[in-house]
């Protein structure tokens, strides 16, 4: 078959190098512009033509390498001989493409030593475009084909290609930007040398200061962040545990409603909670006004700063901890607890000696998950932080503020990265080694033990008020959209919605979306819709490779993939603008950078749902297809994919929804043309225009609920696991 053969990818590379315009075109590519051989403008020409007609000698190695690969691409000759050509040709091609792109930028040579070596270059080049990308892809696949022919990946071209693609995308869209950003730490500042400015940046008292211990000033942002994340994680884990115990271990009638809480963090734009808190506890908030009216005491601005951010984060992340802990509590085999009871341990003792120790790894995991979320959180601190700076907001101000100090942003991001990675490694250690919550697949009868009364009382006493508060905060937040000016003018109004989403009819009968929010809403939906299928396919491909294939370096691939998930969004945002605003990949300000950001930020969703679904499918299913002579690709397409339909839909919708609610990375990447809904909202919040912001949030929440509702309709809620008990009977089982 020609399509997908080595020759096909060789032709792709050749097409990219010889015919198509190599560089990115300012005004997009026209059909006529596609044939870039013989163009008069060097920037609109193909690599081959640029080398031939305009003396751009640095394209000759690219062309030569692709030519070298041809004997390997032709379906003739021994596999060993073909492999040599493919590996050398493709490998050198990749190297040549990367080197020429890195070496020559918009101002000629990128590095002074090259100028010294070759003399000044009176030429320049812009970012790589269609031709360059195709040539890169072609060369990449030729290399993976060559590797497969050499017998790697059990000689399976498809697996080898998939792994190559994953490695390349991780390298391009995570490793490279992060490394570039870290490199920024070493840029000199003012008249200081490299070393001195680095030392000055790192040893900044604004980061490490401990002045708050003795006096009334703020500590360094590092300590602020650490303190905040620790408090949030501890509080959210305790609350989450109470909720999880109530939902799984009691007959509380509102259990199902409580489970809905877990959906909240997914559909909530990250600053809704902060807005709700301001509307309740802020200076013109409900509580302040009532207190001032009844007692005359001014409560002031206590909500701004540590208190407020902590409160908002606990509200935001308790559902996350709850979700993690439901799985943990449900995962404890009832037999473990029943065994304890038959050995004369009361419920309380069973809970302390068996249930809690079994949950420890799960609790630690939930704690770390929330810790990382708090660390990376941008929305709450920016809305409520006031003068209490944390790493994510400091990075933001270092980039967009008056100082515009990328070096400082890089140092802060580096610190954040290190903390995030430590938490990630710790989490892997905790979950990996001591996971007691494992489904053995062996017959396991029984229903969960009811909670001992004291634990029950505590769980209810903590969880119920919190659940009510959560509802109040959300209600308040949304109510803010329907009054004129919160705290001053309580007249009910729809004017905020009107300002955001007005539709007018133009004179010629066309519909005009004149509301201020339409543009960003359409852009957001459009980009999220483009990113979702990409995220889902890469994620599932990665999941499939990781769960189904055994090859050298699989663990390394898995680890580096997981590692990319540990990079906080703010770090990615900074890294992306630093990396992609100059050639060779000049995509700042385009939709592409936002899409890339969505895809690589949300990949965990795709990978996780894929891994979860695939580990439930027995490997023998696709093995059976392969023994019937289906190729690996066909087995994946005809057997695995249809069985994975629910996972695919879930990955699609969640990546769509998450793309719509993300803010931390995106805030650095938006441009006037491509503005995102969340960024639009946060700008309104910063300007104090709460009404419009809240109205927009309300619309987003409704949109996203509709999306979640759609998945549930499409996939249905599948019940796996234990049998449910009817209300009256807390214990028992069936054989």
């Amino acid at each position, binding site marked *: 078959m020609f399509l997908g053969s080595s020759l096909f990818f060789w032709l792709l590379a050749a097409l990219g190098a010889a015919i198509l315009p190599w560089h990115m075109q300012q005004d997009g590519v026209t059909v006529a512009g596609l044939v870039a051989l013989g163009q008069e403008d060097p920037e609109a020409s193909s690599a081959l033509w640029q080398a031939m007609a305009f003396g751009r000698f640095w394209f000759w190695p690219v062309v030569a390498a692709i030519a070298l690969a041809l004997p390997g691409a032709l379906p003739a000759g021994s596999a060993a001989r073909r492999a040599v050509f493919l590996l050398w040709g493709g490998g050198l091609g990749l190297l040549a493409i990367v080197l020429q792109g890195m070496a020559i930028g918009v101002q000629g040579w990128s590095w002074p030593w090259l100028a010294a070596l070759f003399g000044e270059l009176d030429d320049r080049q812009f970012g790589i475009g269609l031709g360059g990308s195709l040539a890169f892809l072609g060369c990449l696949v030729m290399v993976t084909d060559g590797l497969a022919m050499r017998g790697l990946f059990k000689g399976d071209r498809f697996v080898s290609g998939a792994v190559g693609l994953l490695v390349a995308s991780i390298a391009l869209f995570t490793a490279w930007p992060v490394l570039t950003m870290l490199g920024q730490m070493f840029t000199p500042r003012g008249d200081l040398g490299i070393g001195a400015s680095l030392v000055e940046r790192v040893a900044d008292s604004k980061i490490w200061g401990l002045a708050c211990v003795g006096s009334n000033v703020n500590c360094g942002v590092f300590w602020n962040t650490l303190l905040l994340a620790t408090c949030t994680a501890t509080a959210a884990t305790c609350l989450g545990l109470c909720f999880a115990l109530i939902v799984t271990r009691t007959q509380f009638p509102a259990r199902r409603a409580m489970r809905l809480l877990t959906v909240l963090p997914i559909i909530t734009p990250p600053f809704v909670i902060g807005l709700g808190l301001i509307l309740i506890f802020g200076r013109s908030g409900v509580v302040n006004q009532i207190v001032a009216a009844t007692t005359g005491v001014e409560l002031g601005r206590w909500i701004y700063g540590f208190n407020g951010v902590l409160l908002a984060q606990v509200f935001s992340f308790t559902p996350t901890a709850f979700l993690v802990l439901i799985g943990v509590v449900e995962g404890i085999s009832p037999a473990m607890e029943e*065994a304890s009871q*038959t*050995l*004369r341990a009361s*419920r309380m003792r069973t809970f302390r000696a068996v249930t809690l120790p079994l949950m420890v790894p799960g609790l630690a995991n939930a704690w770390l998950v929330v810790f990382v979320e708090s660390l990376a959180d941008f929305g709450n601190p920016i809305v409520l932080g006031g003068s209490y700076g944390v790493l994510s907001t400091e990075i933001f101000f270092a980039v967009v503020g008056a100082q515009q100090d990328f070096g400082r942003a890089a140092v802060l991001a580096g610190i954040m990265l290190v903390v995030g990675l430590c938490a990630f490694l710790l989490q892997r250690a905790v979950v990996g080694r001591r996971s007691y919550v494992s489904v053995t697949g062996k*017959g396991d009868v*029984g229903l969960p033990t009811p909670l001992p009364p004291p634990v029950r009382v505590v769980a209810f006493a903590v969880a119920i008020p919190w659940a009510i508060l959560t509802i109040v905060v959300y209600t308040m937040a949304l109510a803010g959209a329907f009054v004129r000016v919160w705290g001053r003018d309580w007249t009910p109004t729809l004017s905020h919605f009107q300002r955001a989403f007005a539709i007018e009819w133009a004179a010629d009968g066309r519909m005009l979306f004149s509301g201020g929010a339409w543009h960003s809403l359409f852009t957001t939906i459009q980009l999220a819709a483009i990113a979702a299928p990409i995220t889902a396919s890469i994620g599932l491909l990665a999941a499939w490779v990781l769960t189904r294939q055994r090859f050298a370096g699989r663990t390394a691939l898995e680890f580096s993939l997981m590692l990319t998930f540990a990079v906080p969004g703010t770090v990615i945002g900074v890294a992306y603008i630093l990396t992609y605003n100059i050639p060779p990949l000049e995509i700042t300000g385009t939709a592409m950078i936002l899409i890339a950001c969505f895809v690589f930020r949300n990949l965990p969703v795709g990978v996780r749902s894929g891994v979860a679904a695939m580990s439930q499918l027995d490997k023998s299913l696709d093995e059976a297809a392969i023994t019937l002579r289906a190729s690996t690709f066909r087995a994946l397409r005809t057997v695995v994919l249809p069985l994975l339909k629910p996972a695919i839909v879930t990955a699609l919708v969640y990546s769509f929804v998450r793309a719509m609610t993300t803010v931390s990375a995106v805030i650095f990447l938006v441009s006037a043309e491509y503005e995102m809904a969340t960024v639009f909202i946060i700008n309104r919040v910063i300007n104090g225009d709460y009404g419009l912001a809240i109205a927009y949030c309300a619309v987003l929440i409704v949109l996203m609920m509709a999306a979640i509702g759609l998945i549930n309709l499409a996939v249905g809620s599948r019940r796996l696991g234990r049998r449910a008990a009817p209300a009256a*009977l807390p214990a*028992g089982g069936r*054989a």
Partner: protein
Amino acid sequence: MSAAGVEIERVSFGYGRTRVLEDVSLSIAKGEFFAFLGPSGSGKTTLLRLVAGFGTPDSGRILIGGRDATKQPPWARNVGLVFQSYALWPHMTVAQNVAFGLERRRVGRAERDRRVKAALDLVGLWHLAERRPAQLSGGQQQRVAIARTLAIEPEVLLLDEPLSNLDAGLRAGVRTELVELQRRLGLTTILVTHDQEEANAAADRMAVLNEGRVLQVGAPAELYDRPVDRFVAGFLGTANLIEGVVEQGSFRAGALALPAPDAAPGRATLALRPQALALQRDGGGVPARVVRAEFLGGHVRYTLDLGEGIALTAEEPHLRGLAPIAPGTAIGLSLDAGQASLLRS
């Protein structure tokens, strides 16, 4: 029956509308090895869990050692339950698992250590006391689970499909060990299983359950020889079930006629084990035709057609030189009336 074992009196139980147990009464003597045998969904595990104290019967009583335990929680009953999945706590060592039940009973440290060692010695695993459950094989884990239960010296030992997670090769050996241990300790024991061979080999008596009811109780051989019910006859080995009528003191179905002096007239079902049918190669007895002959090593299984829609399975021990009868051959069949059981309809 001795009153000091386990008495189950008219117990009914259900989940909401689903009835799981209907009016179950059983009496298990002290020191007896008793089995609940039944297919999945028969309610046997639920019954065992009610004895252990997980759940309260909707009606009826459960007495353990003569005391009413119906309302007692599991930790107040003196029972030991060995779980199908063993339920060893992964965060404790083998010794800690075994010691768990003793810590609660305020036994001194020295006494506790002695009893942990005794319990582990009993199952031959003292040398693994400091291991974690995950480091043991399936058979070893199962023995630890038994040791943990025995360490508290329960009045009743409850075993929930204890052998089902073991390899087929291990099963017979562990079963024998279990029975020997039980005999040595004289412990009242209830075994839940769906495997009739397991129940036959281990139990003194057993109860066959189906759809939440006890169908028959008795010693294994008694149930095999004299099933009272189609289900029991079919569940315990192969049985020919012949529909017919009883009239004038004999059972008739087609050409078959067997004396049944005590049976009430009317429609009836007769159960006959395949080995109770003797093939007469010279053609004496009831005429029949061989439909299929399956050579199974120790014996040959024949499917026979007696006409009028009656098909029977017969088994003949195989000896060297005795050629199987070819399908299509007409033969005679003699029946031993003493081996037949008339079933209740």
